[in-house]
């Protein structure tokens, strides 16, 4: 809530990324304001994950610039990414996976594990968990570090619909505690609108931003929001934006 560190955002200016002849991103402009909760939406394989890796600093753009904005700490902002695959270290217990890279903050790790519904499984090996449980461990690990920018690549992809809802609400609650910047990738239109302040739609490759739709409903948001007329209008707008470029192959 009240932390010494301020909020950090990121400004992307005409970002391009190519792998050989394969132009994945081109002239991508995007401003992520400090404290923003942004959803990135787009068809599979357009380069959403590439964009996220650039935001995380794991990959350099081939062209364009990325500048941190807001209350930028001296050593640059910290970013933590939750990957699409859980990437748990199989030789570390669940608890040690969550505490990875922290200096022995095992109590905090245990607390986070309890919050994602895995109390009592601290000593389990990742191989003993189900796919959904592993993803929850990865989510807890990403939140452990309280990064300036939290990047989530389809964080709830492995969860069933019911668990998914409760985790969306939980993530919103965690975010509301200190409102640090979150960028998450999804291809679920409703999830994007339910969670974020702003939904960014990418075009098929080479990806650019083709639409930005604000989602302004007051928080915390109830699941019933999906039937609200404003929500339905925004959803229709997003679906149109996703459909827009005729070059996109059906499905």
């Amino acid at each position: 809530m009240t932390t010494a560190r301020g909020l950090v955002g990121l400004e992307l200016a005409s970002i391009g990324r190519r792998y050989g002849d394969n132009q994945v991103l081109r002239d991508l402009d995007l401003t992520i304001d400090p404290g923003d909760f942004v959803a990135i939406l787009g068809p599979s394989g357009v380069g959403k994950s590439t964009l996220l890796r650039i935001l995380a600093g794991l990959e350099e753009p081939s062209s364009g610039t990325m500048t941190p904005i807001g209350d930028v700490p001296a050593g640059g902002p910290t970013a933590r990414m939750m990957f699409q695959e859980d990437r748990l270290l199989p030789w570390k217990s669940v608890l040690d996976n969550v505490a990875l890279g922290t200096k022995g903050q095992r109590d905090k790790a245990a607390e986070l594990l309890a919050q994602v519904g895995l109390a009592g499984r601290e000593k389990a090996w990742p191989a003993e968990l189900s796919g959904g449980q592993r993803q929850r461990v990865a989510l807890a690990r990403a939140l452990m570090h309280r990064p300036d920018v939290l990047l989530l690549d389809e964080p709830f992809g492995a969860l069933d619909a019911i668990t998914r809802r409760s985790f969306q609400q939980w993530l919103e609650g965690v975010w509301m505690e200190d409102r640090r910047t979150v960028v998450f990738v999804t291809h679920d239109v409703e999830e994007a609108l339910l969670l974020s302040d702003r939904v960014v739609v990418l075009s098929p490759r080479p990806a650019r931003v083709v639409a930005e739709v604000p989602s302004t409903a007051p928080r915390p948001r109830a699941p019933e929001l999906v039937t609200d007329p404003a929500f339905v209008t925004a959803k229709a707008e997003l679906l149109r934006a996703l459909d827009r470029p005729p070059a996109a192959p059906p499905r």
Partner: protein
Amino acid sequence: MSDATVSVAPAVTAPGRGLGRLPTPHWTTLLPWVVPVLVLVGWQWASSTGVISAAILPPPTDVVDAARSLWSTGELQSHILVSLRRIAVGFVVGAAIGLAFGFAVGLSRIAEGLFDRTLQMVRALPHLALVPLLIAAFGIGEMPKVLLVTLGVIFPVYLNTVSGIRTVDEKLIQLGRSYGLGRGQLIREVIVPGAMPMILTGIRYALGVAWLTLVIAETIATREGIGYLAQNGRDMLRNERIVLAIVLYAGAGLLADQITRFIEARVLRWNPNYRKAAR
């Protein structure tokens, strides 16, 4: 296990008893011993009735008698001890060298450029072919035997360490970096444990090579050790001593293998494949 904030998905972690195997009654645990016991009984019968010449292959009872009498004079113990010492020293030195070079080459491009080609060339030499040279250089003392074991152990350990490190999942290394692990931490927490299955495979294989090397080294020029027992038996036409030596080698190899399996099951207990073997 319900939580205030988040509902819990049902856990699906019931470790089954192997794939599609039906539960089996207790007596089947004896099944693997049927054939070895039959072979032993057949051997005893054949060499005591003269079907096999007892001078070539003495019956098991003679072998046991030989062991008993050598034990009572203390010879057997001292021979075993000498052989074990050769293996231990040669293996530890060889494994240490193999691990050191393996880690250096696996982790550093400079070390790879500097050492890998040379080590690959040395590896092409069959180390057993060095026996005459080593005897010429060091005589028939302990040195050539230990050195030969060392040479046999270095390369399996080296090669498996290098490829173990190379095959650590790149994604996990990227994960470690992006979660703020420094180089030392990355090596300790990601690379070493990731390479461990292959390193242990290399060590198990190297132990096998070590015993085989010792058999050769001890039979050629020696005055003590299990190999000497066999040579001595041949010279004195006491074949039960030769058979005893063979049995001792086999037992030692088996024991070494069991020890590494035990270590694997401990160190790799996170891996379901190895955990099964530990039970």
